[in-house]
């Protein structure tokens, strides 16, 4: 009883955005995610770390129901965003994905102009009434993506012509343009060089002011640099979830310690 009240208080104090309770994911016969419980706070960067195949990306994709697009994937358990069950029948996954933006591992700009890439989401969701309003949205998103100065003179050129780092920031701007509340990032820097990575990390830190950001990363340095909370996944289990500083300096689970010191993974 006492314990229950403590959890409730936690929710209020940290302003929880996403709560997941006993989430299980099966890919056909493979049990990819095992009973994961996690609270993800608003206006915070939460990092998911863990060895390859540990399920961190799979869990990330549960949060905007991208796993629905995979036939053999089955998700059970409860995931709430703002106290609303996202797997409930009344929730349209299409609407959910507008609310929960996603940035992928490899920059994937559409083979369209930079402008059309950004305007894609606002257009399909009818966020603008006029061309000038759309122009504003595009500019705002590109500024948020910290790429406006680099592309403002060539908005009509294809987004695929940008460099890898620019493409990834374009994709972040594209996700931001639909005005999501949560931003999911699946290893957003793994295809980028160190300079582009630094730019994207800086951007992630800025985005924290407005969004709840969840980032999957292979780089523990990156998790330490950008996140306030870190979750360590191992073989489908959420082993440890705590403040980032705590995880990297004083891990409570031996598996976490082995991983961050480089012994497993």
């Amino acid at each position, binding site marked *: 009883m006492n314990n229950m009240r403590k959890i409730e208080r936690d929710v209020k104090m940290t302003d929880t955005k996403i709560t997941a309770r006993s989430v299980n994911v099966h890919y056909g016969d493979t049990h990819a995610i095992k009973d994961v419980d996690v609270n993800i706070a608003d206006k915070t960067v939460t990092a998911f770390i863990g060895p390859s195949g540990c399920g961190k990306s799979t869990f990330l994709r549960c949060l905007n129901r991208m796993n629905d697009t995979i036939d053999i994937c089955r998700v059970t358990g409860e995931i709430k965003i703002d106290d609303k069950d996202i797997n409930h029948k009344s929730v349209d996954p*299409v609407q959910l*994905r507008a609310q929960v933006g996603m940035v*992928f591992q490899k920059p994937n700009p*559409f083979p369209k102009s930079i402008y059309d890439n950004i305007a894609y989401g606002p257009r*399909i969701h009818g966020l603008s009434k006029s061309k000038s309003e759309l122009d504003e949205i595009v500019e705002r998103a590109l500024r948020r993506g910290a790429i406006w100065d680099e592309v403002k003179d060539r908005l009509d050129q*294809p987004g695929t012509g940008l460099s890898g780092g620019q493409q990834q920031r374009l994709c972040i701007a594209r996700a931001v343009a639909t005005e999501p509340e949560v931003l999911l990032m699946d290893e957003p820097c793994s295809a980028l060089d160190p300079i582009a990575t630094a730019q994207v990390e800086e951007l992630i830190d800025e985005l924290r002011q407005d969004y709840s950001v969840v980032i999957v990363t292979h780089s523990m340095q990156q998790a330490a640099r950008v996140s306030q909370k870190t979750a360590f996944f191992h073989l489908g289990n959420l082993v440890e979830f705590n403040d980032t500083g705590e995880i990297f300096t004083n891990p409570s689970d031996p598996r976490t310690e082995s991983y961050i010191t480089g012994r497993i993974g």
Partner: protein
Amino acid sequence: MTSYHGMFSALLILVPVLTFILLWIALQGPVVDRITMAGLPEGVLDGLDSGGVQLVLAEIKSVSRGQIFGTPEDWKIAAAGRYVILHDRADWWLFAAVTILSLALLAFARSRVAADFRARQGVEGIVSGLMIFCSTVAIFTTIGIIASLSYETWRFFERVPVAEFLFGLNWEPQIPLREDQIAAKGAFGWLPVILGTIVITVVALVVAVPVGLFSAIYLNEFAPKRLRSIVKPVLEILAGVPTVVYGFFAILVVAPAIRSFGQSIGLDVAPNTALAAGGVMGIMLIPFISSFADDALSAVPQAMRDGALGLGSTRGEMMTTVLFPAALPGIVGGVLLAVSRAIGETMIVVMAAGLIAKMTINPLDSVTTVTVQIVTLLIGDTSFDNPKTLAAFALGMMLFLVTLMINILALRIVRKYREAYD
């Protein structure tokens, strides 16, 4: 390394010997024929034209096979005997020559076997030579086809002015049977013929493009796996149906149906309409377009789909705004290839389209096509020295040029836009 020496020897022997045998077999017949004819008694061939000489040779050959009709002259029987002996002897000569050649090559190959001889490079050289030969066979054949087509076309244009052929509005490929015949001078304007081809092609595309495209879109993105696993093979079977079967379908089912339907609503419908031929041709092209479009859609990276879905678009929005534009070059290329197939398609139109060339774009009328005209011009006993027959080659040449241009265009489009995404 040793196996390369063995392979090198084998190739060194087999390639020349097989080439030699093929050449021998190809040349043995004509050479033996020549020798036989040269050995005939003097005077028997006097006064015979080339056809007559051929007839004598054929008779000798049939006698040599034991098929005797009537009573052949003695010299023919003697010639037949010589013919048989020559062939037998030629076989022995071949056997001897091959043996000697093989042994010589074997000795040569054996002498090359040594520790420092790079047999692998030798083998690779020979094999790559063979591959080069195989890959150029098609090219040389094409060049040969173009050359013969060009020659016959040139002969046609010697008799009929180019301008009349290109811009004439009448197509009546008649020639006077006798010198003094006044009627039927013949007109060789290809425009009504190509217009018929265009009408039928357009009808075919109106059927094939939407149906093929939508089936590809459905199968690629929306269909459940089970349905896809059934429908896709069935579509591929449709692609394997011989066109003559489509022709039956057109004349026996589609054409009468269109005619009776048209008459029931008071339209004047020809028995062999462009609509029936083109419609059935369109059905033939459905799997062609659908498999091209399916390939093009499948080639769009998964990252594009994820990106679109991740931004909250529905599958339909993803298809129309991202996948379809990204796949468009491939789809356009496929459609253009379908166009050139429709233009060149022969069997369906021979069976279901008309024979009379008319300047009309009414799909309910009967039209003829370039391919139909080529077939009708060449059917039957024809000699290749009058404009009527030669016109077929001119038409074929134009057909070749048109489809070639469309194919080049298709390839350019596909190539130019292929790297729009990576």
